[in-house]
């Protein structure tokens, strides 16, 4: 009874934190989408220097734990004497990480397309930019959706770590309430439930989107069995 009362009391506060979590994750995913696509294109079609630069970026942000990156961002702000609000710092760190992961999701999708697609676009007189924008990306982004849904669910749960910067998201508010009321079990169960519901709802939505943009009969690796000459 006591636990329920506590939950009822802190619920508005925690839901406020949910809004913060959702905004931070949405911003980070958006940043990853906007930057990840050009990085993927650069890695798939760019020159050696571009590919190396993208590779280095991806290697760094996939190689360092998010907790370390959050503390690094804090240290960087301190040493530069540039006070970044915790929310923004969290968004940036998550955005940088998500950019790295998303670029690899998109690159994988681009490279899974048959080579002939861009060749045919070029043969019709399209520029490479047009071929990539009109022919390659519409297909690659469709193929990326399952991987992208995965990236969303991972980032949403990773966002819990952002409480270390003092971002007022779900986890930091649940922790504060737990320390105040000693109802750790109930409050963290509530936090877990909120993450669970968010994941469930968004994954359902992404699944619906996937079905909506599905091309009839479409699958990758659509290369036709080569009729052997001779």
């Amino acid at each position: 009874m006591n636990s329920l009362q506590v939950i009822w009391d802190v619920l508005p506060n925690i839901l406020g934190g949910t809004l913060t979590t959702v905004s931070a994750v949405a911003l980070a995913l958006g940043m990853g989408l906007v930057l990840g696509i050009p990085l993927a294109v650069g890695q798939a079609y760019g020159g050696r220097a571009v590919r190396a630069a993208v590779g280095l970026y991806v290697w760094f942000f996939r190689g360092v734990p998010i907790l370390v990156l959050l503390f690094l961002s804090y240290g960087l702000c301190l040493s530069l004497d540039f006070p970044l609000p915790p929310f923004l710092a969290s968004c940036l760190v998550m955005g940088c990480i998500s950019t790295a992961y998303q670029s690899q999701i998109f690159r994988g999708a681009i490279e899974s397309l048959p080579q002939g697609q861009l060749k045919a676009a070029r043969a019709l007189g399209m520029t490479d930019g047009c071929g990539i924008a009109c022919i390659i990306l519409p297909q690659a982004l469709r193929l990326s959706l399952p991987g992208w849904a995965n990236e969303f669910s991972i980032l949403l749960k990773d966002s819990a770590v952002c409480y270390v910067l003092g971002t007022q998201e779900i986890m930091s508010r649940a922790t504060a309430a737990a320390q105040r009321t000693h109802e750790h079990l109930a409050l963290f169960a509530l936090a877990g439930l909120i993450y669970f519901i968010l994941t469930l709802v968004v994954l359902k939505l992404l699944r619906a989107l996937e079905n909506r943009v599905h091309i009839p009969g479409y699958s990758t690796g659509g290369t036709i069995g080569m009729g052997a000459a001779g």
Partner: protein
Amino acid sequence: MSQTVLQVAHLSKKLGGKPILQDCSLTLDRGELKVLIGPSGAGKSTLLQCINCLIPPDEGKILLEGRALNFNDKRALCAFRAQVGMIFQDFNLFDHLTAEENVAIALRKVRGMNRQDAQRRAQEELGRVGMSRRAGLYPAQLSGGQKQRVAIARALAMDPKVILLDEPTSALDPELVGEVLAVIKDLARGGMTMLMATHQMDFARALAHEILFMEQGIIIEQGSPDVLLAEGSGTRTRDFCKHLLEMGA
């Protein structure tokens, strides 16, 4: 009357130090159909793809209606390709677009046509290859022969001055070869200038103005089908065709 549309002079290409094409030259006059014959790996496909620079040649010249193509000028390259149709062995239709959109997209993106005009033109071209009723279907819903006919419509919509065909029937089930060859025959009769790599010897014999026989990256024989395929001509072409016939028997 015989006006040269496409001239290819001394085209060479090496890949990994190995010569794939050596000093290949040919001309196509308006309305001419020339056929490239030769064993697999002879460089037929590479030659066709070098002609519209999908594979950049190392050396040589390409002239379209007398004007030399500058390989390094990207804009000129796009303009050139827009006038040179290409048909691939494995169709390469855009998988996310319907048959109609496949034909219309280059009209919109390259020619700058508006959506309605491009659609109308696409419908026309699909009608020409007998695909009007399937305009709304996606490539995955079409048979190989239907896909290749859409690919031909897509090339035709750009009003090409010449069409390059890279073994257009090689990836097709035998019963579907006829419908695609019929479309190409119509084009030939309609005076379309074409260069086609193929193993369809009956087709070559009946329709080609000239046969080019390629081996190891070199055009080794060149002449009218009557001459090259004549009994007792002793040509490499005739030898190869006899071999093809025996294989098919």
